[in-house]
Protein backbone atom coordinates (compact mmCIF):
# COMPACT_ATOMS: atom_id res chain seq x y z
CA UNK A 1 0.00 0.00 0.00
CA UNK A 2 1.45 3.32 -1.05
CA UNK A 3 2.03 5.88 1.75
CA UNK A 4 1.73 3.11 4.30
CA UNK A 5 3.34 4.12 7.60
CA UNK A 6 6.26 1.82 8.32
CA UNK A 7 7.90 3.63 11.18
CA UNK A 8 6.54 5.96 13.79
CA UNK A 9 8.29 7.43 16.80
CA UNK A 10 6.36 9.02 19.63
CA UNK A 11 8.14 11.22 22.17
CA UNK A 12 11.19 9.07 21.73
CA UNK A 13 13.82 9.67 24.39
CA UNK A 14 17.18 7.97 24.75
CA UNK A 15 19.45 8.78 27.64
CA UNK A 16 22.85 7.12 27.99
CA UNK A 17 23.84 6.72 31.62
CA UNK A 18 26.92 8.77 32.38
CA UNK A 19 27.63 10.57 35.61
CA UNK A 20 24.64 11.68 37.66
CA UNK A 21 22.32 12.79 34.89
CA UNK A 22 23.36 10.91 31.78
CA UNK A 23 23.61 12.11 28.21
CA UNK A 24 20.39 12.83 26.36
CA UNK A 25 20.90 11.39 22.87
CA UNK A 26 17.28 11.75 21.72
CA UNK A 27 14.80 14.16 23.20
CA UNK A 28 11.11 13.66 22.38
CA UNK A 29 11.52 12.74 18.75
CA UNK A 30 8.28 12.39 16.84
CA UNK A 31 8.65 11.16 13.27
CA UNK A 32 6.77 9.13 10.73
CA UNK A 33 8.35 7.27 7.80
CA UNK A 34 6.27 5.92 4.97
CA UNK A 35 6.85 3.16 2.47
CA UNK A 36 9.27 4.04 -0.29
CA UNK A 37 10.84 7.03 1.41
CA UNK A 38 14.42 7.99 0.70
CA UNK A 39 15.09 9.96 3.85
CA UNK A 40 18.10 11.10 5.75
CA UNK A 41 18.87 12.05 9.31
CA UNK A 42 21.40 14.82 9.14
CA UNK A 43 23.16 16.81 11.77
CA UNK A 44 26.48 17.17 13.50
CA UNK A 45 28.19 14.44 15.48
CA UNK A 46 26.33 13.67 18.71
CA UNK A 47 23.02 14.92 17.38
CA UNK A 48 21.43 11.48 17.80
CA UNK A 49 21.35 10.24 14.18
CA UNK A 50 22.91 6.85 14.83
CA UNK A 51 20.98 6.39 18.08
CA UNK A 52 17.70 6.95 16.24
CA UNK A 53 18.76 4.60 13.48
CA UNK A 54 19.72 1.94 16.05
CA UNK A 55 16.37 2.20 17.80
CA UNK A 56 14.46 2.01 14.50
CA UNK A 57 16.61 -1.00 13.66
CA UNK A 58 15.71 -2.59 17.02
CA UNK A 59 19.39 -2.79 17.91
CA UNK A 60 18.72 -0.53 20.88
CA UNK A 61 15.68 0.40 22.91
CA UNK A 62 14.45 3.83 23.95
CA UNK A 63 14.60 5.14 27.50
CA UNK A 64 11.04 6.39 27.13
CA UNK A 65 8.55 7.04 24.40
CA UNK A 66 7.79 4.61 21.67
CA UNK A 67 9.21 3.47 18.33
CA UNK A 68 6.75 1.50 16.26
CA UNK A 69 8.39 -0.35 13.39
CA UNK A 70 6.16 -2.32 11.05
CA UNK A 71 3.47 -2.33 13.72
CA UNK A 72 5.77 -3.58 16.47
CA UNK A 73 6.81 -1.52 19.47
CA UNK A 74 10.59 -1.79 19.63
CA UNK A 75 10.67 -1.13 23.37
CA UNK A 76 8.46 -4.15 23.99
CA UNK A 77 10.36 -6.59 21.82
CA UNK A 78 12.37 -9.38 23.39
CA UNK A 79 15.89 -10.03 22.06
CA UNK A 80 14.54 -12.85 19.99
CA UNK A 81 11.66 -10.84 18.54
CA UNK A 82 13.98 -7.95 17.77
CA UNK A 83 16.36 -10.32 16.00
CA UNK A 84 13.46 -11.75 13.99
CA UNK A 85 12.33 -8.25 13.01
CA UNK A 86 15.84 -7.37 11.83
CA UNK A 87 16.25 -10.66 10.07
CA UNK A 88 13.03 -10.40 8.05
CA UNK A 89 12.37 -6.74 7.58
CA UNK A 90 15.42 -4.56 8.11
CA UNK A 91 18.64 -4.32 6.18
CA UNK A 92 21.68 -2.52 7.54
CA UNK A 93 24.47 -0.74 5.72
CA UNK A 94 27.38 0.38 7.84
CA UNK A 95 30.09 2.97 7.43
CA UNK A 96 32.78 0.31 7.73
CA UNK A 97 30.86 -2.19 5.56
CA UNK A 98 31.00 -4.87 8.29
CA UNK A 99 31.39 -7.70 5.85
CA UNK A 100 32.27 -11.09 7.27
CA UNK A 101 35.97 -11.21 6.42
CA UNK A 102 36.32 -14.92 5.70
CA UNK A 103 33.32 -15.09 3.41
CA UNK A 104 33.24 -14.36 -0.29
CA UNK A 105 30.98 -11.66 -1.68
CA UNK A 106 28.48 -14.36 -2.59
CA UNK A 107 28.58 -15.88 0.90
CA UNK A 108 28.24 -12.50 2.57
CA UNK A 109 25.15 -11.72 0.54
CA UNK A 110 23.81 -15.22 1.09
CA UNK A 111 24.12 -15.02 4.87
CA UNK A 112 20.77 -13.30 5.69
CA UNK A 113 18.99 -15.80 3.44
CA UNK A 114 20.63 -18.70 5.31
CA UNK A 115 19.21 -17.31 8.53
CA UNK A 116 15.81 -17.05 6.84
CA UNK A 117 16.16 -20.71 5.77
CA UNK A 118 15.50 -19.91 2.12
CA UNK A 119 15.94 -23.02 -0.10
CA UNK A 120 19.29 -23.29 -1.89
CA UNK A 121 18.05 -22.74 -5.46
CA UNK A 122 16.01 -19.69 -4.49
CA UNK A 123 18.94 -18.44 -2.43
CA UNK A 124 21.28 -18.68 -5.38
CA UNK A 125 18.86 -16.84 -7.66
CA UNK A 126 18.34 -14.03 -5.17
CA UNK A 127 22.04 -13.66 -4.30
CA UNK A 128 23.02 -13.43 -7.96
CA UNK A 129 20.21 -10.98 -8.59
CA UNK A 130 21.34 -8.79 -5.68
CA UNK A 131 24.91 -8.91 -6.94
CA UNK A 132 23.64 -7.95 -10.39
CA UNK A 133 21.84 -4.97 -8.85
CA UNK A 134 25.08 -3.71 -7.37
CA UNK A 135 27.04 -4.69 -10.51
CA UNK A 136 29.27 -7.19 -8.76
CA UNK A 137 28.06 -10.45 -10.22
CA UNK A 138 31.48 -11.04 -11.75
CA UNK A 139 33.19 -10.61 -8.36
CA UNK A 140 30.95 -13.04 -6.49
CA UNK A 141 33.87 -15.24 -5.50
CA UNK A 142 36.07 -12.46 -4.12
CA UNK A 143 36.68 -11.99 -0.44
CA UNK A 144 36.39 -8.53 1.15
CA UNK A 145 40.18 -8.26 1.30
CA UNK A 146 40.24 -8.59 -2.49
CA UNK A 147 37.65 -5.85 -3.05
CA UNK A 148 37.99 -2.06 -3.03
CA UNK A 149 36.11 0.06 -0.48
CA UNK A 150 33.42 0.91 -3.01
CA UNK A 151 33.00 -2.72 -3.99
CA UNK A 152 32.80 -3.76 -0.33
CA UNK A 153 30.04 -1.24 0.25
CA UNK A 154 28.23 -2.53 -2.82
CA UNK A 155 28.42 -6.05 -1.38
CA UNK A 156 27.02 -4.64 1.87
CA UNK A 157 24.16 -3.07 -0.09
CA UNK A 158 23.51 -6.37 -1.84
CA UNK A 159 23.51 -8.10 1.55
CA UNK A 160 21.00 -5.57 2.88
CA UNK A 161 18.73 -5.74 -0.15
CA UNK A 162 18.88 -9.47 -0.90
CA UNK A 163 16.07 -10.36 1.48
CA UNK A 164 14.03 -7.49 -0.01
CA UNK A 165 13.36 -5.89 3.37
CA UNK A 166 10.81 -3.17 3.95
CA UNK A 167 13.43 -0.86 5.46
CA UNK A 168 17.12 -0.28 4.86
CA UNK A 169 19.05 1.69 7.44
CA UNK A 170 22.35 3.12 6.28
CA UNK A 171 24.69 4.65 8.83
CA UNK A 172 27.18 6.96 7.12
CA UNK A 173 27.40 4.64 4.10
CA UNK A 174 29.75 6.90 2.16
CA UNK A 175 32.02 8.05 4.94
CA UNK A 176 34.81 5.70 3.93
CA UNK A 177 34.43 6.18 0.19
CA UNK A 178 35.78 8.67 -2.31
CA UNK A 179 33.45 10.93 -4.24
CA UNK A 180 33.14 8.69 -7.31
CA UNK A 181 32.38 5.61 -5.29
CA UNK A 182 29.97 7.55 -3.08
CA UNK A 183 27.97 8.62 -6.13
CA UNK A 184 27.96 5.11 -7.51
CA UNK A 185 26.68 3.72 -4.23
CA UNK A 186 24.03 6.40 -3.88
CA UNK A 187 22.85 5.91 -7.43
CA UNK A 188 22.49 2.20 -6.79
CA UNK A 189 20.54 2.81 -3.61
CA UNK A 190 18.34 5.44 -5.22
CA UNK A 191 17.69 3.03 -8.07
CA UNK A 192 16.75 0.22 -5.71
CA UNK A 193 14.49 2.58 -3.80
CA UNK A 194 12.69 3.43 -7.03
CA UNK A 195 12.56 -0.10 -8.32
CA UNK A 196 11.72 -2.05 -5.14
CA UNK A 197 9.99 0.73 -3.19
CA UNK A 198 12.24 -0.08 -0.24
CA UNK A 199 12.36 2.61 2.43
CA UNK A 200 15.87 3.95 2.88
CA UNK A 201 16.84 5.93 5.95
CA UNK A 202 20.32 7.36 6.15
CA UNK A 203 22.27 8.81 9.02
CA UNK A 204 24.74 11.17 7.42
CA UNK A 205 26.40 14.50 7.37
CA UNK A 206 27.86 13.95 3.91
CA UNK A 207 26.68 16.56 1.39
CA UNK A 208 26.93 14.01 -1.41
CA UNK A 209 24.32 11.88 0.34
CA UNK A 210 22.17 14.84 1.27
CA UNK A 211 21.90 15.81 -2.40
CA UNK A 212 20.16 12.50 -3.11
CA UNK A 213 17.65 12.64 -0.24
CA UNK A 214 13.99 13.25 -0.91
CA UNK A 215 13.40 13.97 2.75
CA UNK A 216 15.90 15.61 5.03
CA UNK A 217 15.43 15.49 8.79
CA UNK A 218 17.83 17.66 10.72
CA UNK A 219 18.67 16.67 14.24
CA UNK A 220 20.45 18.81 16.79
CA UNK A 221 21.14 17.79 20.37
CA UNK A 222 18.72 14.92 20.05
CA UNK A 223 15.81 17.02 18.77
CA UNK A 224 14.29 17.24 15.33
CA UNK A 225 14.89 20.83 14.30
CA UNK A 226 13.85 20.56 10.67
CA UNK A 227 11.94 18.00 8.61
CA UNK A 228 11.81 18.99 4.96
CA UNK A 229 10.52 17.26 1.87
CA UNK A 230 12.86 18.10 -0.99
CA UNK A 231 11.06 19.69 -3.92
CA UNK A 232 13.70 18.79 -6.46
CA UNK A 233 13.71 15.01 -6.68
CA UNK A 234 16.52 13.61 -8.67
CA UNK A 235 15.35 11.75 -11.68
CA UNK A 236 16.97 8.40 -12.19
CA UNK A 237 17.68 8.94 -15.83
CA UNK A 238 19.37 12.26 -15.04
CA UNK A 239 21.72 10.87 -12.49
CA UNK A 240 22.56 7.39 -13.63
CA UNK A 241 24.82 6.66 -16.52
CA UNK A 242 22.97 5.07 -19.42
CA UNK A 243 24.27 1.58 -18.71
CA UNK A 244 23.39 1.67 -15.02
CA UNK A 245 19.94 3.04 -15.68
CA UNK A 246 19.28 0.21 -18.08
CA UNK A 247 20.30 -2.40 -15.53
CA UNK A 248 18.13 -0.93 -12.83
CA UNK A 249 15.14 -0.51 -15.10
Amino acid sequence: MENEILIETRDLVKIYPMGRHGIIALNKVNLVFRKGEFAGLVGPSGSGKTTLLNIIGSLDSPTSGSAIVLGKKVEELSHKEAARLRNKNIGFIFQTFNLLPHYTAYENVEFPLLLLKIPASERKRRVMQALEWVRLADRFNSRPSQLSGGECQRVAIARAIVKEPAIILADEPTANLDAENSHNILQIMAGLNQQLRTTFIFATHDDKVIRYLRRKITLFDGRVVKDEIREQERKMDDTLPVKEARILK
Partner: protein
Amino acid sequence: MKLYFKLALRNLLAAGLRTWLNVIVLSFAFVAIIWSQGLYRGMSRHAAQAMTEVELGGGQYWHENFDPYNPLTLQEAHGPVPEPLAQLIQEGKATAILIVQGTLYPQGRFFPVLIKGIDPRQKILLFPSRYLELSRNLELSQSGEIPALIGSRMASTCGLKIGDTVTLRWRDKRGAFDARNLTIVHIMKTSVQSVDQGQVWISLDLLRELTGLEGEATVITLAKDVNFAGAVPGWSYKSLDFLLRDIDEVIRGKTIGASIIYFVLLSLAMLAIFDTQVLSIWRRRKEVGTLMALGMTRAQVIKLFTIEGAMHSVLAAVVAALYGLPLLVFFARKGLGMPKAVDSYGFALDERIFPTYSIGLIMGTVIIIMVITTMVSFLPTRRIAKLKPTEALRGRIT
Protein backbone atom coordinates in the same frame (compact mmCIF):
# COMPACT_ATOMS: atom_id res chain seq x y z
CA MET B 1 22.15 -26.81 13.08
CA LYS B 2 23.79 -27.78 9.80
CA LEU B 3 24.19 -24.08 9.04
CA TYR B 4 26.05 -23.50 12.31
CA PHE B 5 28.43 -26.36 11.64
CA LYS B 6 29.05 -25.05 8.14
CA LEU B 7 29.67 -21.50 9.35
CA ALA B 8 31.75 -22.67 12.31
CA LEU B 9 33.95 -24.84 10.11
CA ARG B 10 34.41 -22.00 7.66
CA ASN B 11 35.40 -19.57 10.42
CA LEU B 12 37.68 -22.10 12.01
CA LEU B 13 39.53 -22.93 8.82
CA ALA B 14 39.83 -19.25 8.04
CA ALA B 15 41.62 -18.71 11.36
CA GLY B 16 44.53 -20.66 9.86
CA LEU B 17 47.58 -21.46 11.95
CA ARG B 18 45.88 -20.68 15.28
CA THR B 19 43.28 -23.34 14.59
CA TRP B 20 45.82 -25.90 13.46
CA LEU B 21 48.02 -25.40 16.50
CA ASN B 22 45.06 -26.09 18.78
CA VAL B 23 43.97 -29.00 16.64
CA ILE B 24 47.42 -30.59 16.66
CA VAL B 25 47.83 -30.30 20.44
CA LEU B 26 44.35 -31.75 20.91
CA SER B 27 45.07 -34.55 18.47
CA PHE B 28 48.12 -35.47 20.59
CA ALA B 29 45.78 -35.80 23.54
CA PHE B 30 43.51 -38.08 21.50
CA VAL B 31 46.30 -40.36 20.37
CA ALA B 32 48.16 -40.39 23.71
CA ILE B 33 45.04 -41.27 25.67
CA ILE B 34 43.89 -43.99 23.30
CA TRP B 35 47.40 -45.40 22.92
CA SER B 36 48.20 -45.57 26.61
CA GLN B 37 44.75 -46.78 27.59
CA GLY B 38 45.11 -49.44 24.91
CA LEU B 39 48.50 -50.33 26.32
CA TYR B 40 47.13 -50.77 29.84
CA ARG B 41 44.23 -52.76 28.48
CA GLY B 42 46.72 -54.89 26.58
CA MET B 43 48.75 -55.38 29.76
CA SER B 44 45.68 -56.27 31.72
CA ARG B 45 44.43 -58.68 29.09
CA HIS B 46 47.82 -60.31 28.71
CA ALA B 47 48.34 -60.60 32.46
CA ALA B 48 44.87 -62.05 32.98
CA GLN B 49 45.28 -64.48 30.11
CA ALA B 50 48.75 -65.61 31.18
CA MET B 51 47.74 -66.07 34.80
CA THR B 52 44.59 -67.90 33.82
CA GLU B 53 46.49 -70.26 31.55
CA VAL B 54 49.47 -70.88 33.82
CA GLU B 55 48.16 -70.58 37.34
CA LEU B 56 44.51 -69.83 37.94
CA GLY B 57 42.60 -71.97 35.43
CA GLY B 58 38.85 -71.43 35.67
CA GLY B 59 38.96 -70.69 39.40
CA GLN B 60 40.35 -72.37 42.51
CA TYR B 61 39.33 -74.05 45.72
CA TRP B 62 41.57 -73.07 48.59
CA HIS B 63 42.02 -74.98 51.76
CA GLU B 64 40.26 -72.95 54.43
CA ASN B 65 43.57 -72.16 56.20
CA PHE B 66 45.35 -71.05 53.06
CA ASP B 67 46.30 -67.40 52.89
CA PRO B 68 48.72 -66.65 50.05
CA TYR B 69 49.86 -63.47 51.78
CA ASN B 70 50.75 -65.20 55.04
CA PRO B 71 53.41 -67.95 54.76
CA LEU B 72 52.90 -68.82 58.42
CA THR B 73 49.53 -70.36 57.54
CA LEU B 74 51.10 -72.85 55.13
CA GLN B 75 51.98 -75.41 57.78
CA GLU B 76 48.26 -75.94 58.41
CA ALA B 77 46.94 -75.06 54.97
CA HIS B 78 46.43 -78.52 53.52
CA GLY B 79 43.91 -81.26 53.76
CA PRO B 80 42.66 -84.37 52.01
CA VAL B 81 41.14 -83.66 48.62
CA PRO B 82 37.38 -83.78 49.21
CA GLU B 83 35.21 -86.17 47.21
CA PRO B 84 33.57 -83.83 44.68
CA LEU B 85 36.94 -82.27 43.81
CA ALA B 86 38.69 -85.64 43.71
CA GLN B 87 36.03 -86.67 41.19
CA LEU B 88 36.85 -83.63 39.04
CA ILE B 89 40.57 -84.44 39.23
CA GLN B 90 39.79 -87.99 38.14
CA GLU B 91 37.84 -86.64 35.16
CA GLY B 92 40.72 -84.35 34.19
CA LYS B 93 38.70 -81.23 35.05
CA ALA B 94 40.86 -80.09 37.95
CA THR B 95 44.34 -80.48 39.32
CA ALA B 96 45.63 -80.48 42.89
CA ILE B 97 48.57 -78.45 44.15
CA LEU B 98 50.23 -79.00 47.49
CA ILE B 99 52.25 -76.12 48.92
CA VAL B 100 54.88 -76.60 51.60
CA GLN B 101 57.47 -74.22 52.98
CA GLY B 102 61.10 -75.11 52.46
CA THR B 103 64.63 -73.83 52.22
CA LEU B 104 67.01 -74.12 49.32
CA TYR B 105 70.77 -74.01 49.79
CA PRO B 106 72.28 -72.77 46.54
CA GLN B 107 76.01 -72.14 46.59
CA GLY B 108 76.25 -72.26 50.37
CA ARG B 109 73.50 -69.69 50.93
CA PHE B 110 70.01 -70.40 52.16
CA PHE B 111 66.94 -69.29 50.31
CA PRO B 112 63.38 -69.65 51.63
CA VAL B 113 61.11 -71.17 48.99
CA LEU B 114 57.65 -72.51 48.49
CA ILE B 115 57.78 -76.13 47.41
CA LYS B 116 54.84 -76.77 45.15
CA GLY B 117 53.70 -80.22 44.17
CA ILE B 118 51.88 -80.58 40.87
CA ASP B 119 50.69 -83.59 38.94
CA PRO B 120 53.20 -83.99 36.07
CA ARG B 121 50.42 -85.33 33.80
CA GLN B 122 47.96 -82.49 34.40
CA LYS B 123 46.51 -80.75 31.34
CA ILE B 124 44.59 -78.06 33.16
CA LEU B 125 47.36 -75.47 33.20
CA LEU B 126 49.79 -74.50 30.47
CA PHE B 127 52.60 -75.43 32.77
CA PRO B 128 55.61 -77.57 31.81
CA SER B 129 54.89 -80.10 34.55
CA ARG B 130 55.63 -82.96 32.13
CA TYR B 131 59.35 -82.40 32.86
CA LEU B 132 58.67 -83.80 36.34
CA GLU B 133 57.37 -87.15 35.09
CA LEU B 134 59.06 -90.15 36.66
CA SER B 135 59.69 -91.79 33.30
CA ARG B 136 61.84 -88.82 32.28
CA ASN B 137 63.81 -88.83 35.50
CA LEU B 138 64.43 -92.48 36.27
CA GLU B 139 68.12 -91.99 36.95
CA LEU B 140 67.51 -89.21 39.41
CA SER B 141 64.84 -91.17 41.20
CA GLN B 142 67.13 -94.12 41.55
CA SER B 143 69.81 -91.92 43.07
CA GLY B 144 67.29 -90.42 45.46
CA GLU B 145 67.44 -86.92 44.01
CA ILE B 146 64.33 -84.85 43.48
CA PRO B 147 63.62 -83.73 39.91
CA ALA B 148 62.54 -80.10 40.10
CA LEU B 149 61.63 -77.31 37.78
CA ILE B 150 62.00 -73.65 38.48
CA GLY B 151 61.33 -70.41 36.70
CA SER B 152 63.95 -68.31 34.97
CA ARG B 153 63.77 -65.56 37.61
CA MET B 154 64.32 -68.08 40.37
CA ALA B 155 67.19 -69.63 38.40
CA SER B 156 68.75 -66.23 37.98
CA THR B 157 68.33 -65.30 41.65
CA CYS B 158 69.84 -68.57 42.88
CA GLY B 159 72.36 -68.90 40.09
CA LEU B 160 70.98 -72.27 39.02
CA LYS B 161 70.86 -73.92 35.63
CA ILE B 162 69.53 -77.17 34.22
CA GLY B 163 71.38 -80.13 35.71
CA ASP B 164 72.48 -78.30 38.83
CA THR B 165 71.97 -80.07 42.11
CA VAL B 166 71.09 -78.19 45.25
CA THR B 167 69.95 -79.15 48.74
CA LEU B 168 66.31 -78.71 49.66
CA ARG B 169 65.06 -78.85 53.22
CA TRP B 170 61.44 -79.07 54.38
CA ARG B 171 59.33 -80.12 57.32
CA ASP B 172 57.08 -83.11 57.18
CA LYS B 173 53.58 -83.33 58.63
CA ARG B 174 54.93 -84.03 62.09
CA GLY B 175 57.17 -80.96 61.95
CA ALA B 176 60.38 -82.93 61.54
CA PHE B 177 62.99 -81.44 59.24
CA ASP B 178 64.18 -83.47 56.32
CA ALA B 179 66.47 -82.65 53.42
CA ARG B 180 67.50 -84.06 50.07
CA ASN B 181 69.26 -82.96 46.95
CA LEU B 182 67.18 -81.79 44.07
CA THR B 183 68.26 -81.51 40.49
CA ILE B 184 66.96 -78.85 38.12
CA VAL B 185 65.43 -80.70 35.18
CA HIS B 186 63.88 -77.70 33.50
CA ILE B 187 63.89 -73.93 33.74
CA MET B 188 60.65 -72.44 32.51
CA LYS B 189 60.36 -69.03 31.01
CA THR B 190 57.11 -67.45 32.04
CA SER B 191 55.71 -63.99 32.44
CA VAL B 192 53.76 -65.12 35.50
CA GLN B 193 55.98 -64.28 38.45
CA SER B 194 53.75 -65.97 40.97
CA VAL B 195 54.75 -69.41 39.65
CA ASP B 196 58.40 -68.45 39.36
CA GLN B 197 60.05 -66.27 41.97
CA GLY B 198 60.85 -68.15 45.21
CA GLN B 199 59.24 -71.37 44.06
CA VAL B 200 60.36 -74.90 43.40
CA TRP B 201 58.02 -77.25 41.54
CA ILE B 202 58.23 -80.97 42.07
CA SER B 203 55.95 -83.92 41.42
CA LEU B 204 52.81 -83.86 43.59
CA ASP B 205 53.11 -87.55 44.50
CA LEU B 206 56.73 -87.10 45.48
CA LEU B 207 55.98 -84.07 47.66
CA ARG B 208 53.13 -85.93 49.35
CA GLU B 209 55.52 -88.82 49.99
CA LEU B 210 58.29 -86.53 51.31
CA THR B 211 55.95 -84.70 53.69
CA GLY B 212 53.71 -87.59 54.63
CA LEU B 213 50.70 -85.70 53.38
CA GLU B 214 49.20 -88.52 51.30
CA GLY B 215 46.19 -87.48 49.23
CA GLU B 216 46.33 -83.93 50.53
CA ALA B 217 46.39 -80.58 48.70
CA THR B 218 46.42 -76.86 49.42
CA VAL B 219 44.80 -75.60 46.24
CA ILE B 220 42.61 -77.31 43.66
CA THR B 221 42.68 -75.52 40.33
CA LEU B 222 39.69 -76.02 38.06
CA ALA B 223 39.80 -76.29 34.28
CA LYS B 224 38.75 -73.18 32.34
CA ASP B 225 35.32 -74.52 31.44
CA VAL B 226 34.58 -75.60 35.03
CA ASN B 227 33.66 -72.61 37.10
CA PHE B 228 32.09 -73.75 40.31
CA ALA B 229 31.71 -77.24 41.62
CA GLY B 230 29.50 -76.33 44.56
CA ALA B 231 30.30 -75.59 48.18
CA VAL B 232 32.84 -77.96 49.72
CA PRO B 233 33.21 -78.03 53.53
CA GLY B 234 36.70 -76.98 54.65
CA TRP B 235 37.47 -75.44 51.27
CA SER B 236 36.57 -72.05 49.91
CA TYR B 237 35.84 -71.38 46.27
CA LYS B 238 37.70 -68.46 44.65
CA SER B 239 36.28 -67.31 41.35
CA LEU B 240 38.49 -66.12 38.53
CA ASP B 241 37.22 -62.57 39.05
CA PHE B 242 38.35 -62.73 42.66
CA LEU B 243 41.72 -64.17 41.72
CA LEU B 244 42.30 -61.48 39.07
CA ARG B 245 41.14 -58.66 41.30
CA ASP B 246 44.69 -57.79 42.32
CA ILE B 247 45.76 -57.36 38.70
CA ASP B 248 42.75 -55.21 37.98
CA GLU B 249 43.64 -53.03 40.94
CA VAL B 250 47.28 -52.74 39.92
CA ILE B 251 46.22 -51.83 36.37
CA ARG B 252 43.73 -49.34 37.73
CA GLY B 253 46.50 -47.79 39.81
CA LYS B 254 48.74 -47.54 36.76
CA THR B 255 45.88 -46.04 34.73
CA ILE B 256 45.26 -43.39 37.37
CA GLY B 257 48.96 -42.52 37.27
CA ALA B 258 48.82 -42.21 33.51
CA SER B 259 45.67 -40.10 33.78
CA ILE B 260 47.76 -37.30 35.26
CA ILE B 261 49.66 -37.11 31.97
CA TYR B 262 46.39 -37.03 30.01
CA PHE B 263 45.09 -34.40 32.35
CA VAL B 264 48.14 -32.19 31.75
CA LEU B 265 47.98 -32.76 27.97
CA LEU B 266 44.27 -32.18 27.82
CA SER B 267 44.54 -29.13 30.06
CA LEU B 268 47.09 -27.61 27.71
CA ALA B 269 44.82 -28.18 24.75
CA MET B 270 41.80 -26.86 26.63
CA LEU B 271 43.73 -23.81 27.80
CA ALA B 272 44.70 -23.08 24.20
CA ILE B 273 41.10 -23.43 23.06
CA PHE B 274 39.78 -21.31 25.92
CA ASP B 275 42.36 -18.67 25.11
CA THR B 276 41.45 -18.82 21.42
CA GLN B 277 37.78 -18.41 22.25
CA VAL B 278 38.40 -15.42 24.51
CA LEU B 279 40.63 -13.82 21.89
CA SER B 280 38.22 -14.69 19.14
CA ILE B 281 35.30 -12.99 20.86
CA TRP B 282 37.47 -9.97 21.61
CA ARG B 283 38.83 -9.68 18.09
CA ARG B 284 35.55 -10.44 16.40
CA ARG B 285 33.23 -8.32 18.53
CA LYS B 286 32.34 -6.20 15.50
CA GLU B 287 31.49 -9.38 13.64
CA VAL B 288 29.30 -10.40 16.57
CA GLY B 289 27.49 -7.07 16.27
CA THR B 290 27.09 -7.58 12.53
CA LEU B 291 25.67 -11.07 13.03
CA MET B 292 23.16 -9.61 15.47
CA ALA B 293 22.29 -6.82 13.05
CA LEU B 294 21.74 -9.42 10.35
CA GLY B 295 19.18 -11.09 12.57
CA MET B 296 21.00 -13.62 14.72
CA THR B 297 19.90 -13.81 18.32
CA ARG B 298 22.48 -13.80 21.11
CA ALA B 299 21.74 -17.45 21.71
CA GLN B 300 22.43 -18.17 18.05
CA VAL B 301 25.73 -16.28 18.16
CA ILE B 302 26.71 -18.15 21.34
CA LYS B 303 25.80 -21.40 19.62
CA LEU B 304 27.90 -20.47 16.60
CA PHE B 305 30.97 -19.60 18.68
CA THR B 306 30.55 -22.67 20.90
CA ILE B 307 30.29 -24.95 17.89
CA GLU B 308 33.30 -23.20 16.42
CA GLY B 309 35.33 -24.01 19.54
CA ALA B 310 33.94 -27.52 19.76
CA MET B 311 34.83 -28.12 16.12
CA HIS B 312 38.48 -28.05 17.23
CA SER B 313 37.87 -31.47 18.69
CA VAL B 314 36.22 -32.70 15.50
CA LEU B 315 39.18 -31.54 13.42
CA ALA B 316 41.55 -32.96 16.05
CA ALA B 317 39.79 -36.32 15.81
CA VAL B 318 40.26 -36.27 12.03
CA VAL B 319 43.93 -35.26 12.31
CA ALA B 320 44.49 -37.82 15.08
CA ALA B 321 42.94 -40.47 12.85
CA LEU B 322 45.29 -39.52 10.02
CA TYR B 323 48.51 -40.11 11.90
CA GLY B 324 47.19 -41.93 14.95
CA LEU B 325 45.46 -44.84 13.26
CA PRO B 326 48.59 -46.10 11.47
CA LEU B 327 50.54 -45.62 14.70
CA LEU B 328 48.00 -47.49 16.80
CA VAL B 329 47.71 -50.27 14.25
CA PHE B 330 51.51 -50.55 14.15
CA PHE B 331 51.74 -50.99 17.92
CA ALA B 332 48.77 -53.35 17.98
CA ARG B 333 50.55 -55.57 15.46
CA LYS B 334 54.18 -55.23 16.50
CA GLY B 335 53.65 -54.66 20.20
CA LEU B 336 55.76 -52.56 22.49
CA GLY B 337 58.99 -53.96 23.95
CA MET B 338 58.93 -53.98 27.74
CA PRO B 339 62.07 -53.27 29.77
CA LYS B 340 63.14 -55.83 32.34
CA ALA B 341 62.10 -53.46 35.10
CA VAL B 342 58.45 -54.21 34.40
CA ASP B 343 58.85 -57.33 36.54
CA SER B 344 58.53 -54.95 39.44
CA TYR B 345 54.99 -54.10 38.30
CA GLY B 346 53.89 -57.17 40.22
CA PHE B 347 51.92 -58.94 37.54
CA ALA B 348 52.52 -61.07 34.48
CA LEU B 349 54.00 -59.05 31.66
CA ASP B 350 55.54 -60.43 28.52
CA GLU B 351 58.58 -59.04 26.77
CA ARG B 352 56.23 -57.36 24.30
CA ILE B 353 52.88 -55.93 25.13
CA PHE B 354 50.28 -55.65 22.43
CA PRO B 355 47.91 -52.74 23.06
CA THR B 356 44.22 -53.52 22.74
CA TYR B 357 41.91 -50.83 21.40
CA SER B 358 38.19 -51.30 21.52
CA ILE B 359 35.52 -49.27 19.76
CA GLY B 360 34.31 -48.33 23.23
CA LEU B 361 37.74 -46.96 24.18
CA ILE B 362 38.07 -44.94 20.98
CA MET B 363 34.50 -43.64 20.96
CA GLY B 364 34.61 -42.99 24.70
CA THR B 365 37.81 -40.96 24.41
CA VAL B 366 36.47 -39.02 21.42
CA ILE B 367 33.18 -38.27 23.17
CA ILE B 368 34.84 -37.23 26.46
CA ILE B 369 37.25 -34.88 24.68
CA MET B 370 34.45 -33.44 22.56
CA VAL B 371 32.26 -32.81 25.60
CA ILE B 372 35.13 -31.14 27.50
CA THR B 373 36.07 -29.05 24.46
CA THR B 374 32.46 -27.96 24.01
CA MET B 375 32.24 -26.94 27.66
CA VAL B 376 35.52 -25.03 27.49
CA SER B 377 34.38 -23.39 24.25
CA PHE B 378 31.06 -22.40 25.76
CA LEU B 379 32.43 -20.68 28.87
CA PRO B 380 33.95 -17.60 27.17
CA THR B 381 30.95 -17.20 24.86
CA ARG B 382 28.71 -16.39 27.82
CA ARG B 383 30.17 -12.93 27.51
CA ILE B 384 28.26 -12.51 24.26
CA ALA B 385 25.01 -12.82 26.22
CA LYS B 386 25.85 -9.52 27.91
CA LEU B 387 26.87 -7.82 24.69
CA LYS B 388 24.74 -4.98 23.34
CA PRO B 389 24.55 -5.09 19.52
CA THR B 390 25.23 -1.36 19.27
CA GLU B 391 28.35 -1.65 21.42
CA ALA B 392 29.53 -4.70 19.52
CA LEU B 393 29.08 -2.92 16.20
CA ARG B 394 31.35 -0.17 17.47
CA GLY B 395 33.92 -2.79 18.40
CA ARG B 396 33.39 -2.47 22.13
CA ILE B 397 32.80 -5.14 24.71
CA THR B 398 30.54 -4.21 27.58
